[in-house]
């Protein structure tokens, strides 16, 4: 069986489709820090400069999900589900004008998942 670090809810996929229609190809980047940090941000592909220090956690309905390697060290034992909630976040994340915000729900990886994903 294939184990994954990230998942996405159906409600969030609907928003992805809406944003894709307007902006084209997209990526997620997990933010850290103040204010609207510790939340996923979504941008047009190519807008953000990515390199080896950005870990690809997985693909959500065709959208890559990245996190900085330093942050990943503290997150790698957890599984993330991208969901959507009402809210007025700031930042440059593309869903904000819609009055909604991507949000992460986390759970611990099971022992089996952990053995496979963090070997």
């Amino acid at each position, binding site marked *: 069986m294939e184990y994954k670090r990230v998942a996405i809810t159906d409600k969030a996929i609907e928003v992805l489709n809406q944003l894709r229609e307007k902006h084209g190809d997209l990526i997620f980047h997990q933010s850290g820090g*103040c204010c609207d940090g*510790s939340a996923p941000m979504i941008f047009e592909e190519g807008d953000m400069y990515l390199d080896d220090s950005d870990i690809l956690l997985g693909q959500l309905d065709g959208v890559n999900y990245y996190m900085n390697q330093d942050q990943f060290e503290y997150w790698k034992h957890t599984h993330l589900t991208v969901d959507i909630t009402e809210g007025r976040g700031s930042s440059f994340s593309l869903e904000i004008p819609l009055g909604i915000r991507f*949000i992460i*729900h986390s759970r611990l990886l099971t022992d089996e998942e952990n053995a496979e994903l963090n070997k």
Partner: protein
Amino acid sequence: MFIKINKKMGYSKPKFKDKYENFINGKFVAPVGGQYFDNTSPIDNSLIAKYPRSQKEDVDNAVAAANAAKDAWGNTSAAERAGMLNKVADIIEANLEEFALVETCDNGKPIRETLNADIPLSVDHWRYFAAVIRAEEGTATELDANTLSMNIKEPLGVVAQIIPWNFPLLMLSWKLPPALAAGNCVILKPAEQTPSTATLLLEKIAEVFPPGVINIIQGFGPEAGKPLASHSGVAKVAFTGETTTGQLIMQYASKNLNPVTMELGGKSPNIFFSSVMDEDEAFLDKAIEGAVLFAFNQGEVCTCPSRLLVQEDIYDAFMKRVVARTKAIVQANPYDSNTMVGAQASNDQYEKILSYIKIGKEEGAKVLTGGEACKLDGEFANGFYIQPTILEGHNKMRIFQEEIFGPVLSVTKFKDEAEALEIANDTLYGLGAGVWTRDAHQLYQIPRAIKAGRVWVNCYHAYPAHAPFGGYKKSGFGRENHLMMMNHYRQTKNMLISYDKNKLGFF
């Protein structure tokens, strides 16, 4: 800061117009595209007013106005600029209660804080920069008998500032006065969660500055913030927020070869050594309050002391008192001046905080108090309230490593100085830290060994205008407040003057 409880205990939601506009070139103007967004109060999720949903065209207009004004403004005398800054301070002070009430309504923080902290501190920052530009001087050095080197400070010209929603008027008052004092014109974008006090301020000070010197653009990050941060017509971008947006702004600035300053948050340790409990008197009482300051401003502070480190021999006795003090926090109607903790600024923040409490519990943290949303009655049932929460765990847990930006404290114990420092510095960030001790050696050595830009020693959450503030590591770079802030908004013009009549002799 001494909390004074106003005689008038109960306030209520202030009155607003239906709709507000951008402030560009000395006038309130509608957004070019004619679009607005609904701004709501997190206290009860009720509508406040409509604010402009600005687009690139609005940003272009503001940048053009600022560029048209910059030469004349850059050549005003320090005395004139100081006079205007002082006028702003007087106007805020004369309307302190009104600003406090609007801020509470827009952000959700209790009126007790806005009356005693946000607004009086804002006043002081305007006065501080009015004062420093009257006192500071350039430098001149005689390099040899015939050569004089003169250093003259010149403004950058036009700067862009993007501020957060946790202290809306105070963050504006950290950003605008040094930039204006240095002789720059500014385009400032408030956060879309909290546009109100910036607009209220400009309504009251519209006539103070020449047109184009201050421009306020309201709207969303991707639509207005991004065009502003990437605009080739600005000479500098100052940003307070989170790391991903910080990286993007630096990318855009690199295209324009512009300088930036970044304040990107933290996960600040607050360290209590066993000597704080040597005696049970005023200082211990102060130290316990110092630990409970995690709940200040609902924990929505970049320097929230969100990691509590307590020496193991006093751990049980100290935590018993910290938990008791936390349980005594009054969380109720934010318009009541007895309320200590109000609403989180928005629903998405509220949801995010609850999801962190959940993963904390899953990772094995023990809930010492709180751990859930706070349900208030009546109209407040629609607001976003979280109980002040203390979670006991260890520093590798995600709740110890990520900025939750809520009233959530993660506590752990340490054996000795070495372990305290190891835990304190085991973080991606380095903005603030607290050290509490009666030991004279620890008072100096521990703060020096902590990798953070601001270490409070036997105090916390003080932000005087006269002390520089800023981050190490992923908390950003550049400093705010203090005279040194001015140099982030200026160039140095070096004039190298020869008084020698004789030629070099090369040609």
